[in-house]
């Protein structure tokens, strides 16, 4: 981990956007509490399948999506709950999907790794690493062709840097000046392997080789992510082509909830260091308070509100019915 200057010293308060910042805080807290609940449901054996938590990475989804319009597109990953929530998904239907219930975004057909929702521009989370690079780039192609001013964001983990598809689509995107933003969330590990063991050379040099604008961003600093996203999103919207953001971050928990004995691939001290020194929510709340955009009391009230919304969403999902087994063949056209 590279030593970074404290966020508080680095950036002055922007008086222009206090409400936006409070909304961003609330979204980050929603994702955090949502994921804590996923952890709880999973460990109580109430959630089937696998659960990949986004805890620790909240500033990226929130910073990026705060720079997007509601009709802009995103594609997401197996670690996608945060992206979906930040793009506007509601927690009750998210939880319902995670539990395989009919009220879920995909009527229970997709589950945790496949949340999709046209109403919020969510083209879908994807369980194939790097699998949505084509889809996101294609959405940008439509946006350009149809002239509707939309932008597409392709979220992926640094593990996806290993996939050839990414490079084929980045080449196309720059060649055709498509409004797509590739957001690489480098949370340091591909499953159980440090990214330095799987990734040669300078990551930013890869998009740069195509002539794509590429920036490295502190993924724990939501304001930095937001500011950078704003700039590249507007640039893309203006017809100036794609961008690539490399966001440094850390997943606090296991690769999935069941990954509890992690000492063989990373140390407890390393985990502790990120949690105690680089927590995106802590950094942001300290900044909000220091710049008098909120008091500790106000933030606590917000936390409590978020908590009760999430708790209600969990109850909704737990009480919701499963789909009728006959639905299995619904939407099969061939």
């Amino acid at each position, binding site marked *: 981990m590279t030593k970074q200057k404290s966020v508080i010293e680095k950036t002055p308060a922007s008086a222009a956007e206090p409400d936006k910042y409070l909304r961003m805080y609330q979204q980050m807290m929603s994702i955090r509490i949502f994921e804590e609940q996923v952890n709880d449901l999973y460990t109580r054996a109430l959630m*089937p*399948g*696998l659960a990949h938590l986004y805890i620790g990475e909240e500033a990226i989804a929130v910073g990026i999506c705060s720079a997007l319009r509601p009709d802009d597109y995103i594609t997401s990953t197996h670690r996608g709950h945060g992206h979906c929530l930040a793009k506007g998904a509601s927690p009750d239907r998210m939880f319902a999907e995670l539990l*395989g*219930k009919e009220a879920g975004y*995909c*009527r*229970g*057909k*997709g*589950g*945790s*790794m*496949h949340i999709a929702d046209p109403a919020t521009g969510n083209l879908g989370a*994807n*369980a*194939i*690493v*790097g*699998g949505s690079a084509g889809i996101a780039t294609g959405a940008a192609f439509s946006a350009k062709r149809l002239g509707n001013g939309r932008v597409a964001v392709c979220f992926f983990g640094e*593990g*996806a*840097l*290993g*996939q*050839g598809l990414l490079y084929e689509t980045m080449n196309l995107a720059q060649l055709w000046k498509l409004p797509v933003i590739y957001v690489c969330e480098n949370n340091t590990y*591909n*499953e*159980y*392997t440090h990214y330095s*063991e*799987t*990734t040669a050379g300078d990551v930013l040099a890869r998009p740069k080789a195509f002539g794509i604008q590429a920036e490295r961003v502190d993924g724990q600093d939501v304001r930095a992510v937001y500011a950078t996203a704003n700039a590249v999103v507007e640039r893309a919207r203006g017809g100036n082509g794609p961008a690539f953001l490399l966001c440094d971050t850390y997943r606090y928990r296991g690769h999935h909830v069941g990954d509890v004995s992690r000492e*063989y*691939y990373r140390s407890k001290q390393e985990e502790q260091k990120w949690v105690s020194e680089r927590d995106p929510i802590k950094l942001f709340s300290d900044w909000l308070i220091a710049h008098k955009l909120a008091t500790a009391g106000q933030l606590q009230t917000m936390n409590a509100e978020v908590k009760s919304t999430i708790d209600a969403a969990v109850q909704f999902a737990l009480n919701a019915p*499963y*789909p009728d*087994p006959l*639905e*299995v*063949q619904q939407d*099969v056209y061939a």
Partner: protein
Amino acid sequence: MSTLDVKTAMAPSATERELTLGEAIREALAEEMRRDPRVVLMGEDVAEAGTVFKVLTGLSAEFGTDRVIDTPISEAGFTGLAIGAAMTGLRPVVDIMFGDFIALVMDQMANQAAKVHYMSGGKWKVPLVMRTTLGATRRSAAQHSQSLHAWFSHVPGLKVVLPSTPYDAKGLLKSAIRDENPVVFFEDKMMYKLKGAIPAEEYTIPLGVADIKRSGDDITLVATSSMVQVALGAAKMLQEIGVGAEVIDPRTTWPLDEERLIESVKKTSRAIVIDEGYARYGATAEIASVIAEGAFHYLDQPVKRIGAMHVPIPFSPPLEDVTVPTEQMVFEAARKMCGKS
């Protein structure tokens, strides 16, 4: 699952131990790596992590990370590399974590590995093994649950292995590694904990020899991989209503032991083919046609096929459960065919 269910007729019994299917695979790999320094393992999180299914645990400690190699998430890349390495003196065993990801390596396998030997006029060889998984009901949804072995079985130049017991898994994997040509080895991810007897002494099982898992006179249940246990369960239920079911496992979809399958059906005159892949253009279609052609005059009724439902595998448990063939489904189909009410 009792040991009896999974013991095969061929297993010597003097010095048997019980191993899980996962342990049997690990033992086969370890033995072949000790025996042949050219064997290397490659894939995502295969070394210290021992794969996500923990099948390879301990191999990197014994053989080192020069021979048990973690790769980037670059399936097409490391498969292609393994093909080249196989052509030039190594015997790579590549690990594709979920069978669904074979879609990413299809060009390398179907257009490169499968064709190099023939296209070079028999000059180059590709002694490569690809291990991957199949099987649903793990609540992993549409991109982590498919059984796609038929894709490879369609291509001349690839051998395809589907072990259904720890004993078979070990013996077949050793043969696959010693084979001079590319072999794809599909493991049911839900069966890694299945236990079975394994002799202490070394053995191999040739590719292309079907195994009769249970004999009977009234109906033949041809079953592969995960479906062998389902067929054995159905056979027990059939026994109770006085129907003797023979359960036969081809063990490899290619080479396919046509003779043994046809022989069995000549005896029973009825056949159901059960496989967890899709029935449409699937392994069951090929096997049923082999039986129909080879035992036509002996057949009492058309051969029946049972496979996964023709849908992308859904996540929700009550939906996913109806997509996979069950003992009850096989029992009902067999009962009807045998005219029992």
